[in-house]
């Protein structure tokens, strides 16, 4: 694992280079880079080798996600989406669908997952998107918001109501009736290609319906989200690591009142807090990945815990790093300025702080007295 991970990190480092600042300012990732990383299997590294993937374990992929997250949260968001799409297909698709779609996702095609609606975020009962059977076809109608990576996606994995349950349907972004409206000027992850997507009478072959549909809505939602939460959590570890690295480098070099910043006690405390954040976030993510790898039922709660703890640490660490770098980091595009905006979004997506706390509180009540 270590050697493979080192190779993947080197590949990412080489392809990404020093460009994330300019991607952030431009609000766009180079699509060629995404296709290239996709073709290497790096964007959904946990896809098993029999389907053309790298077959990475959860922790291995986590470290890779943290590596990407430390460089560019927009790119890491694409990785999260691609991974969620692949995991949903692997879990809910039949054997033919798994082979067909996962081969695409590991050979350069890009996928986004379309779940949220303007009235239905965590409240699934408000979901309106409909998938109707119509002869040999299915017809999709609905509107999804804030679909990460939709701008770059070849395929959209869309959650909708189906029969008396729900289903995931795989929709080519080029299908007639699919319309994208980019989210203008997002606060963070500015190059992640967030779009609102409208589906008007989109007709697809019935074979686009994962596993024939008719599945449980909460099950579909939680399964995909569980992967997404672990991925975001590791991405937040990356944000914290980038902040720790930028703050310590600056505090070592920058002199104030005749000594390096690091020797001023109030600044030193910031560095200590960054180190604590990096260690805590890493450990809680490792725990979630271990639960995932051992297929423990606790993985669902462990993923929420990891996401919540890591996102909170990322947001606080980014604020701390901006404070330490002060004017040196206070411009758009700078690694700590990006972290500051990107980390705030991490406290909102894949279950806001408040939703995570509700889930954790519910879990607390199931623990025997």
């Amino acid at each position, binding site marked *: 694992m270590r050697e493979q991970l080192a190779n993947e990190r080197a590949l990412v480092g080489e392809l990404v280079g020093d460009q994330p600042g300019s991607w952030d300012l431009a609000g766009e990732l180079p699509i060629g880079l995404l296709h290239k990383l996709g073709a290497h299997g790096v964007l959904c590294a946990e896809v098993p080798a029999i389907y053309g993937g790298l077959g990475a374990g959860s922790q291995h992929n986590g470290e890779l996600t943290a590596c990407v997250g430390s460089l560019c949260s927009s790119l890491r968001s694409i990785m999260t989406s691609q991974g969620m799409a692949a995991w949903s297909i692997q879990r809910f698709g039949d054997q033919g*669908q798994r082979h067909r779609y996962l081969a695409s996702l590991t050979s350069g095609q890009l996928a986004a997952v379309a779940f949220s609606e303007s009235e239905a975020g965590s409240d699934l009962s408000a979901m309106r998107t409909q998938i109707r059977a119509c002869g040999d076809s299915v017809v999709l109608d609905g509107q999804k918001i804030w679909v990460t990576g939709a701008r770059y996606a070849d395929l959209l994995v869309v959650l909708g109501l189906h029969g008396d*349950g729900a289903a995931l349907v795989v929709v080519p972004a080029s299908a007639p009736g699919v319309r994208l409206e980019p989210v203008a000027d997002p606060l963070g992850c500015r190059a992640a290609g967030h779009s609102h997507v409208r589906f008007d009478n989109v007709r697809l072959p019935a074979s686009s319906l994962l*596993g024939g549909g008719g599945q449980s809505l909460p*099950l579909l939602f*939680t399964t995909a989200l569980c992967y997404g939460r672990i991925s975001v959590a590791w991405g937040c570890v990356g944000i914290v690591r980038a902040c720790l690295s930028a703050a310590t480098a600056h505090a070592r070099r920058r002199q104030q009142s005749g000594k390096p910043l690091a020797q001023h006690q109030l600044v030193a405390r910031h560095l200590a807090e960054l180190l604590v954040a990096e260690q805590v976030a890493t450990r809680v993510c490792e725990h979630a990945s271990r639960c995932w790898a051992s297929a423990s039922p606790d993985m669902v709660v462990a993923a929420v815990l990891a996401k919540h703890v890591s996102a909170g640490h990322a947001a606080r660490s980014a604020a701390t790093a901006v404070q330490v770098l002060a004017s040196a980091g206070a411009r758009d595009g700078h690694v700590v300025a990006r972290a500051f905006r990107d980390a705030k979004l991490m406290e909102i997506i894949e279950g806001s702080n408040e939703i995570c706390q509700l889930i954790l509180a519910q879990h607390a009540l*199931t623990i025997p007295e």
Partner: protein
Amino acid sequence: MTAEQTTIPVTAEAVEDALLSFLAERVKASVAPDQDLFGSGLVSSMFAMQLVVHLEESYDIAIIGPELKLDNFRTVQAMTRLVLRLRDASG
């Protein structure tokens, strides 16, 4: 597999009893074997997936693709049938 898991006898009665006690412990309510878990609101979005993972781990089965249909999880009896069918198919 742990020693504990391999010793669970896989008969309909045993699967059903184990599921009923798992549910009683996790949802803090007593559940009837034919009760609609989704209709009664007992199964939260978090818990549905825990149930799947629990069944896979306890009975060494893979529940994927079309098997994840709602009807297979609607009641304890339905889940019991699913477990027995998947064990037969793999055995």
